């Protein structure tokens, strides 16, 4: 089985995010970047499928030098090969542009299965994985929380919906976007980390991917972030005093009379 995993590098969820000097992007100074948390579940699902059926896991990442760290971590976990997608023409792509780049790269690898996280926790778009499926002409299931293999080309997956879940039968090839709860991602072993240094990491540009540069990048972007603002400040409110019973009575009173939310 050939499995592609799409990896994004994002600021850690613990990072403080400040608006940058241009007022339309974030200040990346001092921000720690990590593998997108949902991509870790995608990566684990890919490794489990490989362990079950044999084959190969190829990880793809778009970006500068930093993304190589994330891809190297995936190699340490057990991916066989990494592909970095990098070209000045890719800069400023919107979600569809990013999906076009990834779809072109993934198509070349001819995978049976494509995994990615359900959403990047930076832009919170939850768009690219599903768009890649459309561009590849593959079915997709998004927000997958359960996965059970029937055989090498069929699986049963569960996805969350409002107040419950749906079960689907999937025939490969397909794109699955992973949610938290799908599995427990493993840690890299020392041996894995050593081996990762010798595994192939290839850099591909627009020409190598056969991408028409006019369909990606800022020139082709149909949406643009024009402004970023911090959330409205909240000031610390009233500390309610007294013993437990007094505090509770006072709280219920203010919720009713002041905040008018009861």
């Amino acid at each position: 089985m050939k499995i592609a995993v799409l990896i994004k590098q994002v600021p850690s969820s613990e990072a403080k995010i400040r608006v940058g000097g241009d007022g339309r992007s974030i200040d990346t100074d001092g921000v720690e970047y990590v593998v997108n948390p949902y991509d870790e579940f995608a990566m684990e699902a890919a490794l489990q499928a490989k362990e079950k059926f044999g084959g190969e896991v190829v990880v793809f990442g778009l970006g500068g030098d930093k993304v190589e760290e994330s891809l190297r971590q995936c190699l340490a976990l057990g991916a066989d090969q990494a592909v970095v997608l990098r070209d000045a023409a890719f800069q400023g792509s919107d979600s569809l542009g990013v999906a076009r780049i990834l779809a072109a790269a993934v198509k070349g690898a001819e995978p049976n299965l494509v995994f990615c996280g359900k959403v990047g926790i930076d832009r919170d778009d939850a768009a690219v994985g599903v768009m890649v499926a459309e561009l590849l002409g593959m079915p997709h299931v998004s927000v997958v929380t359960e996965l059970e293999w029937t055989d090498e080309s069929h699986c049963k997956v569960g996805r969350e919906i409002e107040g419950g879940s749906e079960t689907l039968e999937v025939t490969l090839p397909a794109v699955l976007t992973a949610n938290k709860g799908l599995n427990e991602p493993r840690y890299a072993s020392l041996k894995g980390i050593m081996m990762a240094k010798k595994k192939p990491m290839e850099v591909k540009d627009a020409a190598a991917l056969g991408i028409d540069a006019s369909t990606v990048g800022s020139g082709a972007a149909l949406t643009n972030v024009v402004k970023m603002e911090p959330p409205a400040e909240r000031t610390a409110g009233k500390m309610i005093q007294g013993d437990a019973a007094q505090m509770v009575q006072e709280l219920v009173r203010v919720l009713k009379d002041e905040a008018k939310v009861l």
Partner: protein
Amino acid sequence: MAKKILVFGEQRGGALKKSVLEIIGLAQSISGGGSVDVVTMGEGIGSVGEALAATGASVHVADDASLAQPSPEAYVAQIDAAVQAVQPDVVLFTASAMGRDLAPRVAARMGAGFISECISLDANGDGFAAKKSMYGGKVFATVESKAGAKLVATVKPGAHKAAEAAGGGAVNAMAVAAPSSLGAKVTSVQQQATDRPDLAEADVIVAGGRGLKEAENFKLIEEVATPLGAALGASRAIVDAGWVPHHYQVGQTGISVSPKLYIAIGISGAIQHLAGMRQSGCIVAINKDAEAPIFKVADYGLVGDAFEIAPLLAKELEKACS
């Protein structure tokens, strides 16, 4: 500029998703004298079509056994047929499990721009401008679509006024456009038997964290939530510890919420948690550590023992809310 707007009329099992009416209301308010069409699909959904037409929108209905269960492959083909017929400037979805699943695929098929989870959306000359949260609520972005470009967007429920019954919308039956075989097919749907509202849409949320000490003490949260008719929330710490399922998690790697009232019990307030709940109307924090960061965003703070306060609060709320 007058806009042609197509809205996806989401339904499940013949019940129209309530927030669709909000999206139609939004569409009517920004169309600038253009047009509002709705496309809906399923099996046995005649009443859904009528309810949608009552808003005055032109409704395109595909009613067929092959559309009984949602499927990106089938539904996107059907929506695309409506896009071909209507030639809209923008296609709007409610930001639900189904809307989020379909919308990016529709955008890719149309070659359109895409903005997800819009808190607001308005016409902006020859294009559109939307506001959405990014980084789990740590920043808010204004996103514009390029002039003249088609757009697909998902809109957060609860942010817009529902369309009122104006009557007079036409109902057009559509031919089935879905492919005959599907690569991914829904075989069953499990709905949890619960009286509680969905976390993402709840007006009141009561959430618990590590201050509860053990999984079984989460029942204190339930006791406080019950008289309020509240949804249950949780910090990442107790989700990761396996006390409650992931869909309870509020924060950057969970659900971002903005209820009228958010009661945090035993939650210290990690940055990624605060990002996901600081848009709430009124925040109450109960924590034994007076220095906990949660108090910096709380409208009302109670420093004390959750095990003592929560049962008393449940009792007082029962009296107050009955």
